[in-house]
């Protein structure tokens, strides 16, 4: 197995607190108006497509209800998160981490190969045939890096009225501001689901070795 690049590790560990702060302060912001709508406008609970449950204080930042403080945390962490994401994409393309380890090959998309990979996962066999990651791993990392994380930034940008003059096309593309807000919420919970599975997989595949490798990079690179 190849070492984790320094840029990957730096991004991973710096992004973690950002994502945690963004998620927990986001729950406070959700509590401020816990209804979601589709389209450009929406303000009446009876027209909402989803009434979101209220999140208790122990799940939120700050640990009490303050929309003002939650917004301060959210828009602070958003900057670091977005810049880090830009950094890791440049690094992944430059050091070929994306092309070599994450991009899937046509062979992996063969139904039989997918079925075999699913079967192996169901049997808790997570071996990687040769490459750094197996197919499902590539797929989930690709989805997180290529869709969920940039999607959080794009839907977040679409929410700011100060961005609307130049980015009105983005709001329209997302189906209107309230649709962007709904998508922001859905993507956040999709990331939460990834987080749970990601941590579970680390626990199942030798947590100490995995943690060590993600911090130090892992054993020296051999001729891969």
């Amino acid at each position, binding site marked *: 197995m190849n070492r984790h690049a320094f840029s990957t590790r730096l991004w991973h560990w710096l992004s973690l607190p950002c994502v945690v702060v963004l998620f927990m302060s986001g729950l406070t912001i959700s509590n401020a*108006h816990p209804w979601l709508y589709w389209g450009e*406008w*929406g303000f009446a609970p009876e027209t909402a497509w989803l009434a979101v449950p209220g999140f208790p204080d122990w799940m939120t930042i700050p640990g009490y209800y303050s929309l003002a403080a939650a917004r*301060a945390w959210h828009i*602070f962490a958003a900057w670091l998160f977005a810049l880090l994401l830009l950094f890791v994409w440049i690094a992944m393309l430059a050091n070929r981490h994306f092309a070599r380890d994450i991009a899937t090959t046509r062979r992996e998309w063969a139904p039989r190969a997918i079925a075999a990979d699913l079967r192996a996962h169901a049997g808790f066999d997570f071996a990687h045939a040769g490459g750094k990651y197996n197919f499902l791993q590539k797929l989930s990392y690709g989805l997180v890096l290529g869709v969920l994380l940039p999607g959080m930034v794009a839907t977040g940008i679409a929410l700011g009225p*100060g961005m609307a*003059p130049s980015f009105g096309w983005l709001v329209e593309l997302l189906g209107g501001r309230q649709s962007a*807000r709904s998508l922001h919420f859905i993507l956040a919970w999709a990331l939460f689901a990834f987080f749970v599975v990601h941590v579970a997989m680390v626990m199942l595949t030798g947590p100490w070795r995995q943690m060590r490798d993600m911090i130090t990079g892992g054993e020296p690179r051999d001729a891969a």
Partner: protein
Amino acid sequence: MRRRSFLAAAGASLLAGCNRVAESARGQRLLRGAEDWHRTAQRFLNPPRALAPEFTRADISPVFRGNGSINPANGDYQAHVGENFARWRLTVGGLVQHPLTFTLAELRALPQRTQITRHDCVEGWSAIGEWTGPQLSLLLDAAWLLPAARYIVFRCADELNGALYYESIDLLDARHPQTIVAHALNGRPLPVKNGAPLRMRIERQLGYKHAKYLTGIEAVASLDGIGGGQGGYWEDRGYQWYAGI
């Protein structure tokens, strides 16, 4: 088991840490700094006179929600409602050469701008309405701003939790073409819940910047010493002064 208690402890210390950071002076400065980065970035990406999206009549929401003060009980506001705002006056003062006072009829006689825009509340909801009124820049030009003026403060008639509402913007937003003193919503005089008889429209910022029940426009050099010194009713309670995000 040990792992779970470790996670719980990590979560609790993260929360405690966040609270401690937010309560320290340096932490507050850091968090508030992000607001300035957003303002700088948004203004770099959106030219000073770029317009917020405008919509068609078909896009107008069936109701325009009222929020915050929706029927002020303080002062003589209810008397003004009873007289249909016949004695309402709007003053333009502070750092200007010619302080002015307008009646509603005088404001309606000025050149008007009508715009159908989306209103985004800090809580997360949005509504679309058609607003009509003179541009703020017109009033400021008539009063001749002095060179020392850097901010425009909006004085309001409504009290929230015992404090008079107020707001402020800088000259860039004050001179924006869509910054108007609205007296009409969807072709009719403003309803009380939406700020009758006058409210500001600051289309590139969140709803709390759009001061309602407007009585005065004041040019100032600094926001210190006005209200709590943070530039607005909600700003004094921790919200961002720049509300483009």
